[in-house]
């Protein structure tokens, strides 16, 4: 069995040094007492400890069915003792709870689908993260990301002028290929505001390039903001920092409102979609997003079905498709995505299980963002995914999510899989008709 190692993380260690038993008790009771209610009570009292959620979890499956990695096992090591001892738990306990909730659960919600009572275990892990945040135990790397969000309203410390510069640079590049193409900035009254996550201008600028090509070819009335609020990502959501999450989403929605767009179209990112479509809007008091939010997968499907983009050639080699939790279990886009994939690829080989039952990449939920200290454990904890990928026998995997890309990339290297990863936008860019090019 792969032994669990309690990993030393500077953020956790430094936070723990400042803890006192009184502070732990006060904080736990403040969060559980003031910020929870009927849901937590019903979940904790309804759970009959049947363990049927276990096989939903890729951590459990990958770590030789170690019960301490089963979803209910994680609840047992976090929420139950906090409730039972009314917050009187040790510093050591809190450090371990931090590692469990923040790095050994991707909040992918697969277990929610496997629980006969529909108990939302991801919600309980989020509560633990909230407590961890208030105790300042959040792992160093993701906390740095949250700081970036707080200071710059984007994930990667991208400065305001760097952002605009990156867009101008990509516009220049595109015009080599499509002479009249544009990346319209600050165009009030456009139909679409296109938003991306911080890493795109930072080190995946080709994705902005490809998306802009698709927009131009499709002849859309679109724009990108030149002000903070352009970033739709949200690691604060995953550190339990609801206050910063609310600031981020507010900035994002207000930017769209200022530009008077009809809808926000998002790049291929899962967690950002979750934050804009599902979580952030709630924090701001909106039942559903105040402005329609369209994920790239749905957007591509719309373009294809409206005839705005056309297939010029198809990928000949067999491909497989990875269903990201936040747009599949979180938005049911699996069939639309497959229709687009099949339009551009001759042979789609399914992973098993797939669609809403797909196994997680083990990177999402802020886990990959906890950085190098946790990388080995994370990759070790997803051999199940590696086997799933390997069984397809294909060499090209489409993963329409940044976190999934990161997670799958690590797995592919660690387990020596001969597999290339692509975003769906890359495939479309390669294979669509570009009349003006």
């Amino acid at each position: 069995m792969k032994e669990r190692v309690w990993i030393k993380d500077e953020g956790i260690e430094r936070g723990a040094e400042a803890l006192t038993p009184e502070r732990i008790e006060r904080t736990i009771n403040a969060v559980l007492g003031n910020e929870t209610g009927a849901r937590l009570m019903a979940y904790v009292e309804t759970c009959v400890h049947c363990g049927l959620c276990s096989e939903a979890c890729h951590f459990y499956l990958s770590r030789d069915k170690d019960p301490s990695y089963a979803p209910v096992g994680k609840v047992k090591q976090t929420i139950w003792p906090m409730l039972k001892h009314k917050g009187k738990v040790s510093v050591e306990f809190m450090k371990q709870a931090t590692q469990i909730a923040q790095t050994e659960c991707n909040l992918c919600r697969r277990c929610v689908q496997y629980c006969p009572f529909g108990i939302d275990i991801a919600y309980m892990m989020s509560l633990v993260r909230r407590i961890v945040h208030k105790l300042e135990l959040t792992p160093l790397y993701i906390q740095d990301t949250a700081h970036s969000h707080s200071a710059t309203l984007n994930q990667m410390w991208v400065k305001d002028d760097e952002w605009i510069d990156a867009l101008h640079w990509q516009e220049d590049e595109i015009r080599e290929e499509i002479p009249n193409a544009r990346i319209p900035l600050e165009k009030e009254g456009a139909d679409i505001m296109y938003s991306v996550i911080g890493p795109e201008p930072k080190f995946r600028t080709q994705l902005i390039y490809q998306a802009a090509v698709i927009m131009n070819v499709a002849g859309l009335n679109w724009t990108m903001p030149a002000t903070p609020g352009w970033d739709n990502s949200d690691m604060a959501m995953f550190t339990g920092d609801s206050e910063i999450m609310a600031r981020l989403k507010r900035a994002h929605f207000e930017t769209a409102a200022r530009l008077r767009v009809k809808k926000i179209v998002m790049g291929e990112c899962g967690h950002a979609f979750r934050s804009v479509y599902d979580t952030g809007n709630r924090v701001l008091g909106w039942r559903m997003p105040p402005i329609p939010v369209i994920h790239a997968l749905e957007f591509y499907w719309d373009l294809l079905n409206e005839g705005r983009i056309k297939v010029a050639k198809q990928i000949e080699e067999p491909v497989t498709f990875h269903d990201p939790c936040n747009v599949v279990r979180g938005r049911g886009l699996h069939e639309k995505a497959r229709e687009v994939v099949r339009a551009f690829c001759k042979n789609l080989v399914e992973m098993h299980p797939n669609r809403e039952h797909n196994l997680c990449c083990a990177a999402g939920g802020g886990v990959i963002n906890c950085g190098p200290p946790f990388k080995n454990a994370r990759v070790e904890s997803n051999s199940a995914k590696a086997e799933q990928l390997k069984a397809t026998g294909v060499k090209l995997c489409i993963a329409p999510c940044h976190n999934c890309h990161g997670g799958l990339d690590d797995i592919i290297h660690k387990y020596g899989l001969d597999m290339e990863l692509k975003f769906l936008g890359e495939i479309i860019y390669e294979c669509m008709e570009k009349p003006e090019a």
Partner: protein
Amino acid sequence: MERIYILVSGPLAWIAWSVLILGSIYRLWQVFSLAKQKEQVLFSYISLKYALRSIINWSIPWNTTNMRLHPIFTGVAFLFHIGFFVILIFLSAHVIMIEEGFGLSWPTIPDALADVMAFLVVGACIFFGVRRIVRPEVAFVTDWTDFALLGLVAAPFLTGILAYHQWGDPLLMTILHMLSAEILLISIPFTRLVHMLFAPFTRGYIGSEFGMVRHVKDW
């Protein structure tokens, strides 16, 4: 002994049923007023259509992905729950007591069938208990209270079987049967057996979230 029988079949039965009914009302009221007070937002995510869709799909044996992953457990769990309620409501001896006490009556199942079902319920409890010991993922989250709850549920069925077959003194067995059933009734609102009351709501809520917001199946 006769006086004990009169006590358990009369006043204690009234107490047990009252505690069950009032306790259940209290627990539901508690959870709803808590939601109203602190999580009012939950109500805006409830959709009757998707709640029912979820509840129905999880009420059909071997219908959900996880049930198919655990076919034997699923079979046992369904037999257990069906047996529990069918015997409780349709056993002739129970209906006769209701009829003679309140003048209400409804169709019953043959005693032979009830007998088989009672054995199945006790067998299921043993199965659940053994599973708690031999399956590591279940053992990890099991403590004595889990076995106590199983015992609490199994006891009325075991003593019911003994009383029906007249193994041991019928009067004593009947007293133990009624007493254990009364303890079970009283425990329902205040232990994890409360899932009997809460499950439709937890299921319905997550079904609504998955159906209405996330547009995806939750089974």
